[in-house]
């Protein structure tokens, strides 16, 4: 599944960078791009930097994870403007992206990953 990657969107720079370190540990071969904050110090998300992360990710199929609702809206806009196939999951940011990364690394198919993510779906 080398053509499936992960993008992580958080309102905060450190959260995104920290998740990157956490999941790199178990998924060194998975293409992961993270975006956190409007800048290193400003909290928020922006459509531009999400689109940038989508483009920078080597993979054409992306599993996307976010923290709070407003990140999701920007993610959806970026998805609509991108040619890549992007699936946004309403699952816990840290826990969901960790599971997806571990499974991608283990070579599990996207369908099977979605099955597992469904079990931790939450209203966000």
């Amino acid at each position, binding site marked *: 599944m080398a053509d499936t990657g992960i993008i992580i969107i958080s309102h905060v720079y450190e959260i995104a960078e920290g998740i990157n370190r956490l999941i790199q540990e178990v998924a060194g071969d998975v293409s992961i791009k993270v975006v956190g904050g409007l800048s290193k110090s400003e909290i928020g998300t922006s459509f531009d930097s999400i689109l940038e992360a989508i483009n920078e990710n080597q993979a054409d199929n992306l599993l996307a994870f976010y923290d709070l609702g*407003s990140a999701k809206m920007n993610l959806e806009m970026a998805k609509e403007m991108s040619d890549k196939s992007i699936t946004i999951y309403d699952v816990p940011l840290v826990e969901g992206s960790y599971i997806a990364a571990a499974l991608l690394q283990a070579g599990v198919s996207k369908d099977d990953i979605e099955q597992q993510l469904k079990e931790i779906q939450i209203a966000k």
Partner: protein
Amino acid sequence: MNVETGIRWMELFNEKVQAEKDYLTQLDTPIGDSDHGNNMSRGMTHVIEAIETQKPDSLEELLKLITTNLLSKVGGASGPLYGSAFMGMLKAQKEDNIPWSAVIKSGLESIQKRGKAEAFDKTMIDVWIPVVEALENNQLTDAVIDQAVESTKPLKAKKGRASYVGERSIGHIDPGAYSSGLLFHAMLEAEAE
């Protein structure tokens, strides 16, 4: 609406946002994350700068510029929402002879498409809905706008960050409703000039 009035509209909206920046943030404190003033101020500063440097000479160019700047510079939920609103207006405005009320309505629909909010969820659309209705009947006044803003106070939030505090959101004006109020007050003023 033509491009000159449109530019004036944005200038007046910007003035109001900068003047009421602290109040917008204050509204976003009990039921949010205290950044709506900052968000709108940053977004509108960029819109004004872009107007000055790019000097749009059609309404279409103006709406495009507003859309991209709000989308990428606001930073909060209101970014993609106001961005979507102006994108919806841009699309509608391309149609021949479309009335202004229909353009604003298209903006409202885009906000709803993006944010999935319904009427009375205590969001900015609780201002947009009555404004569109009044526009359609040629009855939009400052009083109509103020009343719509105020009507968000008793509501319980069902969307956005305010929904996290549930019952506790009751009794506070929604910050996005207030900034939308400023947007429409500015529109009336620009049209009157």
